C-alpha cells in the first residue's frame, strides 16, 4: 500500500446529508454536516465540498467537534447559490480536512477578518480564548448585511467589543477593515496578527505588519481543483495554497510579495489581476 492510509482516507469523498442550516445574513448561511474527519480539523484548514451535479468548491472550516463540522458560505455564483437552495437532508460530498492551520500563540493577538474570511478566525479565536492575554477583532464587509458572526465575535473579545467596518457605512466604522489597524497598533502592543479575507485587504495588513515588524499569519484563497497539492491550480509563487497553505507566515508572505493581492491563476492557468 503505497499512498499512506491517512492521506487516502482524508481525500476519499464522503457523502453526507445536511443536518443543519443557519442564516447568518441575507447572503451567508452556515451548514452543519456529520463528518468525523472534518470534525477534527484545526482552525485554518479547509474542506472540499461537492454539490452533486454542480461543482466542488473549497470552504474554510468554521467549527468542528462531536463528529460534526460547520462552514459558512456566501452566495456568489453558481455553486454557492445552488448550495443556498439546498435543504436539511440533502446530500453533499465532502473530502478533507486539507491544508495547514494557524499556529497558536500566547500573549496579545489581533484578528482581522473580511467577509466570510472571518470564519476560520472565529474558529481560531475559540481555541485561543482560554490561553491568551488579550484578543481583539476587526471585521469588515461591504455592507451591514454581509457582516457576519458579530455577536460571537464580541463575546470572544477581551475588553471592548469587536471593531466592525463597512464600506458603505451601514454599520460600525465607515471604512475598510484595514483602516482602524494603524491606530490600534499605535495604542497597543500585539504579539501576533491573524488575517483572512479579500486578498487586497490581506496585502494591506501585510504591508502594515512588515513596516512595523510585527509577526503575522494570513490564510489565502486560490482556485482549487485537487486540494492535495497535485494539480497546480492554486500556486502562489513557489507555494501550493492547498498543501503548503492556506495559512502563510510573515516570511512566506514576503516571498510571494509580487503576487499577494496583485495576481492569481485563472481556470485556464493564465495570470489574472486580483
Amino acid at each position, binding site marked *: *500500500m*503505497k*499512498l*499512506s492510509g491517512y*492521506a*487516502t482516507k482524508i*481525500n*476519499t*469523498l464522503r*457523502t453526507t446529508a445536511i443536518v443543519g442550516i443557519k442564516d447568518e445574513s441575507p447572503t451567508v448561511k452556515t451548514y452543519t454536516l456529520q463528518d468525523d474527519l472534518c470534525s477534527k480539523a484545526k482552525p485554518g484548514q479547509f474542506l*472540499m465540498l*461537492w454539490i*452533486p*451535479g*454542480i*461543482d*466542488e*468548491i473549497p470552504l474554510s472550516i468554521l467549527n468542528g467537534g462531536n463528529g460534526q463540522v460547520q462552514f459558512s458560505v456566501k452566495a456568489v455564483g453558481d455553486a454557492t447559490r445552488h448550495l443556498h437552495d439546498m435543504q436539511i437532508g440533502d*446530500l453533499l*460530498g465532502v*473530502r478533507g480536512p486539507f491544508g495547514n492551520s494557524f499556529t497558536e500563540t500566547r500573549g496579545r493577538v489581533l484578528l482581522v477578518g473580511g467577509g466570510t474570511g472571518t470564519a476560520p478566525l472565529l474558529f481560531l479565536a475559540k481555541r485561543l480564548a482560554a490561553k491568551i492575554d488579550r484578543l481583539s477583532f476587526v471585521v469588515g464587509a461591504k455592507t451591514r448585511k454581509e457582516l457576519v458572526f458579530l455577536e460571537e465575535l464580541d463575546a470572544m473579545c477581551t475588553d471592548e467589543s469587536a471593531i466592525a467596518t463597512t464600506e458603505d457605512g451601514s454599520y460600525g466604522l465607515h471604512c475598510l477593515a484595514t483602516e482602524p489597524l494603524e491606530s490600534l497598533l499605535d495604542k497597543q502592543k500585539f504579539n501576533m496578527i491573524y488575517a483572512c479575507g479579500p486578498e487586497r485587504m490581506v496585502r494591506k495588513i501585510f504591508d502594515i505588519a512588515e513596516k512595523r515588524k510585527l509577526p503575522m499569519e494570513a490564510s489565502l484563497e486560490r482556485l482549487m*481543483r*485537487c*486540494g*492535495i*497539492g*497535485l*494539480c*497546480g*491550480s492554486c*500556486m502562489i*509563487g*513557489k507555494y*501550493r495554497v492547498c*498543501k503548503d497553505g492556506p495559512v502563510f507566515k510573515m516570511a512566506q508572505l514576503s516571498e510571494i510579495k509580487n503576487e499577494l493581492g496583485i495576481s492569481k*491563476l*485563472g*481556470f*485556464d*492557468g*493564465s495570470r489574472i489581476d486580483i
Partner: protein
Amino acid sequence: MSNSLLTVNIAGMNLGSPTALASGILGYTAESLRLVAEGGAGAVVTKSVGVAPRPGYPNPTVVQADSGLINAVGLPNPGIDFYVEELTYAKSLLPVPLIVSVFGYTAEEYALVSKKAVEAGADAVELNVSCPHVKYTGSEIGQNPKLLTDVVCKVKAAVQKPVIVKLSPNVTDITELAKAAENAGADALTVINTVRAVAINVETQRAVLSNIRGGLSGPAIKPIALRCVYDVFEAVKLPIFGCGGITDWRDAVEFFLAGASAVQVGTAVGSEDPTVFQAINRGVASYLKRKAYGSVNEIVGLCHQD
C-alpha cells in the same frame, strides 16, 4: 549521491537524475517547475498546452480511488501564445531540461504549438496524444497509428528539438503505436498516460467527475504501466520514459529493469511532496551502489535477459 551514477542521456538531453516530473502535475508556472527541479527532478514536463486557452472541466476533476486517483481536469491551459512568456521565464529559472507537453486537435496544431514552445526555449516537446478524457485530441490520435504518424511527422518537420510521444494504455496493442511513433521519427516515448476510468457515488447515484470519464493514475496502474514498458521495450529501439504509479525508488528500479531509460512521477508528487524526486534518486543510487553498478543505464531492460 554520485552524479555519474544517476546521469542519463535520453533523446540527446542530459538529465542529472532519471526522475522527471510528469505532465499535468503542478507545471503551469515557472516557479512550480523550479520547485520540482529543486525537489530533485532531472527534467520537468509542463502541463499540456494547446493553441487556444481552455478553462478545463468544472470540479470535481480529481477523485480518490482505492490506490490512486481518477482525474478529468480537461486540459486547462492558457494557450501557447500566452504561455510562451511563462516558458521563457521557466527556461531562465530551471537548472534542468524543460519539456513542454503539447496537445492539439489536428497535426497542424501539434506542429504549431510545438514550434512556438521550442522558440520559447523548450528543450523537447512531449506530444500528449493520450489524454483519456478530452474528445478529438488525446486518445483519438494516440489510438490510431495513421493519425499518430501524421502528427509526429508534422511536428518533426516543425522543430529541431527532440520529440517525445506519450502513449496511451487504452489500446489493444501498445506496441503498434510505439512502432508507428518510431517510424514517424519520434526521439523517445513516454509510457503511459492514465487508464480510462469512472468513479460512481452510491448515495447520489452519480458519476463523480463532472466529465464522467477520467484517467486512473497512481499505484493502482503501476503493474499495467510496467507491462506497457516491458512490451514497448521489446518492440522498439527508442528510449522510454516509464510513467505510472511510481512512488518510491523500488518502483523506479522496476521500470528501469522493464526497459525505461528514465521515469516520470505524477500522482506521488501530491501524496509525497515535490521532494519525492530526491527520495527516489537517493534510493536508486544506493540500490545501484549495493549492486555494484556504475550507472543507472546499466540496469535498463535487465529483466529481459533470460
